[in-house]
């Protein structure tokens, strides 16, 4: 697991109440109870936490945690 994965997991746990144990790379966002509103909220949080802008088209609730990590990394997330 990367440092970015750990920070992402911490953010999902703190902001959306996702149990840390459930945040595995292959877990789908919808399985973590992250719906479209959560992703809108996540977009704003990611900008503040990782310094990248995520648009509505970048991510869906069918994506996995690993997809999110790769998205953040690919956009140069810090």
């Amino acid at each position: 697991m990367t440092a970015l994965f750990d920070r992402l997991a911490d953010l999902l746990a703190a902001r959306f109440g996702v149990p840390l144990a459930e945040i595995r790379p292959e877990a789908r966002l919808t399985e973590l109870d992250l719906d479209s509103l959560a992703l809108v909220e996540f977009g704003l949080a990611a900008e503040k936490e990782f310094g990248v802008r995520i648009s509505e088209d970048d991510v869906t609730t069918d994506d996995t945690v690993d997809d999110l990590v790769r998205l953040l990394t690919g956009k140069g997330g810090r």
Partner: protein
Amino acid sequence: MAPETAVTGVGLVTPAGTGVAASWAGVLAGTSTATRDPDLAGIPVDFTCRVPDFDADDLLGRRIAWRQERMVHLGLVAAREALADAGLDPRTWDGARVGVVIGNALGGTAIFEREAGVLRDEGPQGVAPLLIPKMGLSSLSGYLAIDCGATGPNITTVTACASGATAIGTARDLLRSGACDVVLAGGTESALSPLVVAAFHQLGALSTNAVPERASRPFDRDRDGFVAAEGAGVLVLERAEDARARGVRPRALISGYGASADAHHPTAPDPSGRGVEQAVRAALADADLAPEDVDHVNAHGTGTPLNDVTEAQVVRRVLGERPSVTSVKGALGHTLGAAGAIEAICTVLSVQEGVVPPTANLDQRDPAVDLDVVTGTARRGPVRAAISNSFGFGGLNAVLVVTAA
């Protein structure tokens, strides 16, 4: 004859505590809940009545709590308590027959104020995308439907500080008309943000007493305004015949509802009390009761100089000197859009248990209040029929009649 409306469940979250037991015990003790409010530093009136030790993450889980503001958290906890009290299981009911009617006056003001600051300091790209769904006055009635699968009529009533009572009257009508078999009815409010408190103060509505716990003093000679508070109250209402058919004994009946408008002034009550009297008489007629049948009045009793005298004169004129009178706002402060629901529940408990709570901080009754106002300690004795008064800015009046089941 119209079917009787039964109260089969109640839930409270108030400055006296979370849950009916803690809230009612605090109200019966008649002790003030007003304290300094750290969020109001720098505001001339820096005390409120807040719900103590209410941790939404703990009570509802972070997965639900992050989605909504405190006004929804308070109401959700109260509603779940009411449903459990009524012995109803949302997993087994026909949700299409279940309605929700919730009163609220001001919406999620805290997030609105915070995000106004974000817009100013960071620009529009920083504004919370969920501001609108979180600040809406209808956010509790909507989320409550999600929480318990109630897909029947869903209404938010807004009649300022009478909103919670209007919700119960509206719910009663949904049961009478046959539109619903069960209605979750109540009110919620958590609007103690700096802008709101500062504005109430600028209006001259708030007590400026130097000692917070002595500030809310309904009917007292030295009252000088209300203390702003937060809280929620939710009732489960059903037709009495339906409740009895499923083997449930109602706590009490909502037997009458009367509503009116002063058509007088945007904030001040009509000193003649005509609008209030009209609502009281309409509620009694609706309940098919005579004035002498009323044993008890749970007053609006805000502790503002004008309200208490006007209300007292109407009660005296219509009901005479016999009924016991109390205002729970001495203990709880003024929960605004939730007050009518919280006080209706207190009235239900008074009828059910035969006990009237004292009016906190009433040391010397205003001579213009010529009524039997209960002070000091709770008073025991049968309460067969009671009215609960609620009045809002704009001269909006709602009166409920509660009778023994």
